[in-house]
């Protein structure tokens, strides 16, 4: 599997006129393989948007190398950008143009015709409102129009910065479904977000950055597994007796405030249940000890501070 995005030693420092500055990205290394949805996570000020802006040639890195679809940024960006759709932060659209006119203005840059524009509008469910001024659109509609604009190029890579920002629950679900379907088509959807539950439900792989550096990266399941969590949570009325029973059968179990954490995978939950029953103990709850992305994220970025003054 080849990488569509490669970032090596990216460093970006915003200098102040009076001296000093803020390091937004500090030696970031990142590889994004082709296909699927890639979640790019980090707390506010971690350098997500700066990284995306560097990738799209909007911000000049202080140091480091970036490659997008195999082309060096910014030297070969004019070629590679033709297969990259993007939204940086909020979708920046012409507010006094209709949705369709917005897409026409952008589409002309790449010689994209009316049929493709119609198809993009249709895909994001905006065909009925395409003639209305964008300033009358809700935030969710603007997000969808931004995605329609990004889709005009039939992109191999979509770079979306916080696409669910400001959306209501229904809008979030719509965007989630759209991202999934785009990833399933073989496109690479590189999506930054701080809505971790969304990323967990949508992304195939994630990277977590903090203080401008990569903390962890890989398939979602691997990132979660690396933080433990491959066990069971058991609740019953007599926790000490339950622990004794399990230990007697050679099953590792630790007691928490209201439950037992058992060191067996979910596939062996029947064994746990049976063992306890054989000792006259009956479980009131038995479930996989799942660590969610939010927990992992918080653990990894717990000492995070916004920016680093230099």
């Amino acid at each position, binding site marked *: 599997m080849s990488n569509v995005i490669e970032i090596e030693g990216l460093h970006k420092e915003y200098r102040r006129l009076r001296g000093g500055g803020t390091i937004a990205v500090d030696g970031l290394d990142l590889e994004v393989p082709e296909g699927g949805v890639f979640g790019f996570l980090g707390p506010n000020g971690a350098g997500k948007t700066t990284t995306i802006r560097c990738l*799209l040639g909007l*911000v000049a890195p202080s140091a480091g190398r970036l490659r997008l679809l195999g082309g060096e940024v910014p030297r070969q960006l*004019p070629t590679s*950008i033709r297969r990259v759709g993007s939204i940086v932060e909020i979708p920046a659209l012409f507010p006094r143009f209709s949705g369709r006119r917005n897409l026409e203005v952008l589409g002309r*840059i790449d010689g994209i015709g009316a049929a493709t524009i119609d198809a993009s509008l249709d895909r994001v469910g905006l065909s009925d409102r395409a003639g209305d001024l964008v300033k009358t659109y809700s935030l969710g509609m603007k997000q969808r129009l931004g995605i329609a604009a990004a889709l005009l190029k039939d992109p191999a890579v979509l770079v979306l910065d916080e696409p669910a920002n400001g959306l209501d629950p229904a809008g979030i679900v719509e965007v989630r479904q759209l991202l999934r379907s785009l990833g399933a088509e073989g496109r690479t959807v590189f999506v930054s977000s701080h809505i971790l539950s969304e990323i967990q439900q949508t992304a195939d792989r994630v990277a977590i950055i903090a203080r401008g550096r990569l903390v962890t990266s890989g398939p979602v399941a691997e990132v979660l597994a690396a933080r433990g969590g491959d066990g069971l949570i058991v609740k019953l009325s007599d926790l000490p007796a339950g622990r004794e029973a399990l230990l007697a059968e050679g099953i590792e179990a630790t007691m928490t405030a209201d439950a037992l954490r058992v060191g067996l995978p979910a596939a062996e939950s029947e064994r746990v249940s049976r063992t306890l029953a054989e000792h006259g103990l009956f479980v009131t709850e038995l479930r996989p000890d799942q660590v969610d992305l939010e927990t992992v994220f918080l653990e990894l970025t717990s000492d995070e501070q916004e920016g680093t003054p230099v």
Partner: protein
Amino acid sequence: MSVIRLISSEWLRVRSRRLVKVLTALTLIGIVVAVGIGAANSERPSDDQLARAEHRADRVAEDCIAQGGYGEVEPGGDVEAFCRELAEPSHFLDESPMRRSDLPELVRGSAFVAILLGLVIGASSVGASWQSGTMTTILSWEPRRVRVALVRAGVVAAGCFALVALLFASLAAVFWLATGLRGLSATPPGWGAEVIEVVARVSALASCASVIGGAIAMLGRNTAAALGAVFVYLAVLEGIVRGLRPAVGRVLLGDSVAAVVIGNDMQLGDGSVVTPARAATVVAAYTLGLLAIATVSFRVRDVH
């Protein structure tokens, strides 16, 4: 090919802008109203009134010729032609009707509005992109910033030239009609060529103003800042410099624009003369200089 597509996109953007439509509509309404008021206050003179005016004009012309053109004609110059032009019969009418022959002066008098129009359209076409964030969107389609900046300046400049020329054509048409109905329709020889020349000069100035406005908006990333900067520069800074050092007027933008509008040699406060060609060179230098600075700045600065 990609440049042509970018031009096409930029042209669609510029002509779709509400500000352009509103300013065009307001200017057209202004033309119709102003010429209409002029026509309402004008009355076509009777044949008898015209005959009396021609008689008076003849007498003045003969007197002028007899006195050698009142010393205004340079040695070797055509005294009779000078005096006949001086003693234009319509000037000797008791009432002063609208004269079609005044159209070139009307265009010169409207130059300020045309240049302001160019400045506002140019500044807002760039400033609005920064304020709405659409510059980011455009650059995510065409990351070659120098190309984006120059195409944008070129399209806005060409658009402003065409728009101003079109508005003056509208003015000419309405004025033609009004003077035909309620004024004097006679025109001197070479009048048509003069009208075209003046319209071309003023349209070119409006075009330069659009580039200057756009360039300053590119530097300040804001429309209001650009308009404010131009106002402060022209009204305050150049005013002070002109007052302190009149001779510097030949390299000031305001004086140079005035000389191009007039189309003849213009005398400055210190007695020196600015030719239209020199003035046009100064205006072009300001325009291209600011465009170059703005383009380099756009090329190197981060876009947020």
